[in-house]
């Protein structure tokens, strides 16, 4: 296992800048998730660690060694490709065992090892087939098995579970989680799925347009999203963001928006400074909203837009006049009819404020 470091990495394809400037450090044994929308440079970053793409500038270090110009085979990595990249002329067993073959392992030994890994991923009885003769999900697991069949310094995963059904995905996720705890693998894991990132990562890097917006442990990302972008990306469903007009009155911050009734918020220096622009964004997580009762201080009201029953809980979405919707995740047996008015309440401590530029304003109780 080894550490990974990006030092001022940039990458352009011709005139197109895919990654402007990234620096980060991943400690030995960390499981990092790269999270971000399509086209934000996740695969490109991963490929630069793998050595399949040469950075336009900057240095890549693995285990303290400068590997920027080192051939992929000499980096001690294994990788699951977004498009699987199985060898079409080899059967599943040979595909999985190929890394052992180039390492000079003898045939019976490497096939035994391939079978072991394949069994764990439930493709043990497909070993004689060609990649074209198995399903997409099975191909993806073959690709995963090929990456896990030999010990590596760094494991690179490019959306390795994207094509699995919900149950298999949970199982495979559990398996990876177990591997990580068991052998402390260093891994960089690309995903669109924030739940996957939350479950697996020791730290999450949220990326946007080739930049890392926030790099922090999952709980930190969840509790203190650095920007509205992160807030909007993490959580299921993501945080409700309500643009508000702000003013300062009687030594407190007053927020105004359609359908919003809010107790004044205590001023700090930072809040006062951010309030000068007159605009902020109010963030509240769906799971922090509940049906309002008389006496609630912070309430958002509107007409019911949708009510989705998810089993134990419901997703209740209301529409506040003409500007935007607010979703709540609540436990309720009550049948609320679409079109009726709904009042949702939340506690002041669950409020996150973002300034005009979208950056989070630290709350009063933070340093």
């Amino acid at each position, binding site marked *: 296992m080894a550490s990974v470091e990006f030092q001022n990495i940039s990458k352009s394809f011709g005139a197109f800048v895919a990654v402007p400037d990234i620096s980060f450090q991943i400690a030995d044994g960390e499981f990092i998730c790269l999270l971000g929308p399509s086209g934000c440079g996740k695969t490109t970053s991963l490929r630069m660690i793998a050595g399949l793409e040469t950075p336009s500038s900057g240095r890549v270090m693995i285990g303290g060694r400068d590997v920027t110009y080192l051939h992929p085979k000499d980096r001690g990595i294994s990788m699951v490709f977004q498009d699987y990249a199985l060898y079409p002329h080899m059967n599943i067993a040979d595909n999985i065992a190929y890394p052992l073959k*180039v390492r000079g392992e003898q045939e019976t030994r490497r096939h035994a090892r391939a079978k072991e890994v394949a069994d764990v991923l439930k493709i043990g009885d497909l070993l004689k087939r060609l990649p074209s003769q198995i399903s997409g999900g099975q191909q993806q697991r073959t690709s995963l098995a090929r990456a896990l069949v030999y010990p590596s310094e760094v494991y690179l995963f490019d959306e390795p579970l994207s094509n699995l059904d919900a149950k298999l995905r949970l199982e495979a996720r559990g398996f990876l989680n177990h591997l990580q705890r068991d052998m402390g693998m260093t891994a960089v894991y690309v995903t669109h799925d924030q739940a996957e990132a939350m479950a697996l990562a020791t730290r999450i890097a949220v990326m946007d347009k080739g930049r890392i917006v926030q790099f922090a442990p999952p709980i930190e990302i969840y509790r203190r999203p650095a920007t509205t972008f992160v807030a909007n990306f993490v959580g299921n469903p993501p945080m409700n963001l309500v643009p508000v007009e702000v003013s300062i009155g009687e030594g407190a911050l007053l927020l105004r928006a359609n359908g919003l009734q809010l107790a004044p918020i205590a001023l700090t220096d930072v809040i006062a400074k951010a309030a000068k622009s007159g605009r902020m964004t109010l963030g509240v997580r769906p799971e922090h909203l509940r049906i309002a009762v008389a006496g609630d201080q912070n309430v958002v009201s509107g007409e019911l837009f949708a009510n989705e029953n998810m089993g134990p809980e419901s997703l209740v979405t209301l529409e506040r006049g003409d500007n935007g919707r607010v979703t709540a995740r609540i436990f309720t047996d009550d049948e609320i009819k679409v079109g009726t008015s709904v009042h949702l309440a939340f506690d002041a401590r669950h409020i996150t404020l973002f300034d005009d530029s979208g950056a989070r304003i630290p709350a009063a109780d933070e340093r």
Partner: protein
Amino acid sequence: MRKAPNIFMRRTVFSAAATFLGTVFALPLVWFVFAPFNARAELGLAIPSPFTLSNFATVFQNTFAMQALLNSLIQAAGGVVLVGAAATLAAYALSRSPIPGKGAVTYILLLFSSVVSGSAAMVPIFLIISAAGLIDTHLAVILVFAGGLLPTAMFILRDFIDAIPRSYEESAMVAGASPLQAFFDVALPVIRPGIVVVLVWAFVNIWGSFLIPFILLRSDKLMPASVAIYSFYSEAGTPIVTLLAAYSLIYSLPVVALYLFVNWKFGFRFFGGIKS
């Protein structure tokens, strides 16, 4: 439903036209199959009676004609191996490496190839070959064919390789393979169908070619079959149809056999393994 007679008419006319065209093209082939077995074959079509193998017996006794078949095989095999190996390596490099201006190189080569194997270049080719002291050798024929066919072969193969995702080799290299291992273990098997197409194409080209060996070779014992066919003419220059027919059939068999073999052995394309 009212349209039914109309469709029927059109089908009939179409079928009649297709039959006529088919017959026109089939007649020479029918002759080609029947004449070798007819001891009194003429240029006209006739069903052999009696059915005989005597034409073949005569051809097989003709040592010059038999040696010519062997020569054809040597020259074709040599050319095919050379073209196949060189085109594969060159096309792979042109497709995968980031050489600037590689597109232009391919097109210029392609432009020149039609010149090199064309009859316009016969004089310079003859001069070059004779300066190299290679006149009247198999090697001369092989080299000239290889030179003429290579650019087109490279072009076809490069297109084929361009269409194959790089992730195949990339995943091999990440798994620990050197570029050479990635090429032989993964890339080569995947591009093999393309290579086979080029090999067959080169073989057919060399096998059927007359002008180049005719000019570059002198001694009878080196002449390929395409030239040797001329030995089945009488002194007066009229063809001895019976022998000509039998020899032609033998001469065409390797090409047919090659096609059938390739179709049986490689007649499928690799696919799969990449998420589409």
